């Protein structure tokens, strides 16, 4: 583009590098601010369960769950964490009762959602104890009640476990493209919950 370019003096070259250096430092500080903001949490206690959910998420106290929080910035379908307590069948082993509980929840979810498909039910370890994990998918046909939008494929994950003699289900729901990233934060949310 430019013609007759002059040779750059050492001082000008240093000035160029200084600009680049200042911008890099600013962006590194910006990145640190982003990480700090994303990891900031708020606490909420209900029915003996205290959770630490991401700051900026919306808490829905009227949803009928112990906890329901959702991310208002996660696009058409809000990434959501739900904590609920369920009755446990005491006539069978703990793992059999948890598997039955997860299957029942799955059945009722299949009746209220579109194209529901249960992927897998596994025995896993969470919070240092045995648990049952279910993964599934469904289609949210109207993710935004206020405007016409395309349906969203939602991936879900339930962790069911017994603690203090009660059965709890921790649920993650996220749009399919966001699920992998959301899963890591959700596990941290699950592990940090305090149950009395």
């Amino acid at each position, binding site marked *: *583009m*430019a*013609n*007759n*370019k*002059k040779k*750059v003096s050492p*001082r*000008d070259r*240093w*000035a*160029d590098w*200084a*600009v680049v*250096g*200042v*911008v890099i430092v*600013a*962006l590194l*500080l*910006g*990145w640190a*601010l*982003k990480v700090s*903001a*994303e990891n*900031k949490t708020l606490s909420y206690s209900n029915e003996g369960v205290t959770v630490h959910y991401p*700051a*900026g998420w919306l808490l829905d106290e009227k949803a009928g769950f112990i906890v329901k929080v959702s991310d208002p*910035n*996660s696009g058409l379908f809000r990434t959501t964490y739900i904590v609920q307590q369920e009755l446990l069948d005491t006539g069978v082993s703990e793992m059999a009762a948890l598997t039955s509980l997860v299957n029942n929840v799955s059945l009722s979810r299949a009746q209220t959602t579109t194209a529901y498909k249960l992927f897998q039910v596994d025995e896993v370890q969470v919070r240092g104890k045995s648990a049952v994990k279910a993964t599934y998918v469904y289609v949210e046909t109207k993710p935004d009640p206020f405007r016409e939008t395309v349906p969203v494929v939602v991936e879900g994950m339930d962790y069911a476990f017994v603690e203090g003699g009660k059965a709890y289900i921790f649920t993650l729901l996220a749009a399919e493209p966001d699920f992998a990233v959301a899963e890591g934060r959700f596990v941290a949310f699950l592990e940090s919950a305090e149950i009395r």
Partner: protein
Amino acid sequence: MEQKICCVCHKPVGEDAKTLGRRFYCDEHYAKVTRERKGVWQSGIAEIVAVLLFVALIEVIISIAKPTLTGTPLLLTGLVMALVPAVIWMVFFYRQDRLEPEPKVYVLEVFLLGALLASALGIPLVRDLFRVQDWLGQSTLTNILGSILVIGFVQEFLKYAAVRYSVYLSTEFDERVDGVVYATAAGLGFATMLNINYVVSNAGVDLRMGMIRIAVTTLAQASFAGISGYFLGRAKFEEEPVWWLPLGVTIAAVLNGLFTFVRGEITRVGLTVNPWNGLILATVVAALTFIALYYLMRRANKLTLAQAQGA
């Protein structure tokens, strides 16, 4: 003994050559460096007025015709609106810069480079890598710092780079005020691409809201770029310290970030949005910036001339 050469045209100059800082000038380029070029400033102020008149015109058309555009016509109307502020500036600039216009191709290339950098780096960095929309609103402090450190520095560095690594070293960049001219062109290119992205990502926009937002983005991006341009203009023709250019980019980034924050705060009224407040803020900021740059440039030129007469 080392031969003295003009720092603009690189031709040999005599022993009695004029200097600024420790840079030598031939007579022709020394005269040019300190030229006032009132047309540059007049076109800047005219741009502000014309953009406001364009917003008023759209407002009148909306009030009278009450257009109900949808789909492709809405998208195309939005895209035309996104281009209008840049076209207005080009027209004013060339009408008022008749004495020695900058080569049209250079100004256009810097404009396109600004747009290209916005599209290739500016928007993806801020929106996809830093994802500022996810965390900026967490607290007031986070909002201010994030707006400066991420939005401000990314945008202002790219506009600075569009000038510094293209036309800056050419012989066409031969006056202090050229820094402001080319940086404003880069800022307008950057703003135009931000506006096109805004229109396209929303598949067309509400005409009133869209026009105001386009006007605000244009005025702000062009004015903050002008600040870096002032520092670039002086850095080329004077022996400024190493921290001079970083200071220019930092001032532009801080003002850009603060503007982004304040605009967000004053346009939100409860659960509704009042974009007119943003337009008033952008107009005041743009006018003050151009007036401040005009006086700073004039002062620098007067000092130079006074030194030359004293020597």
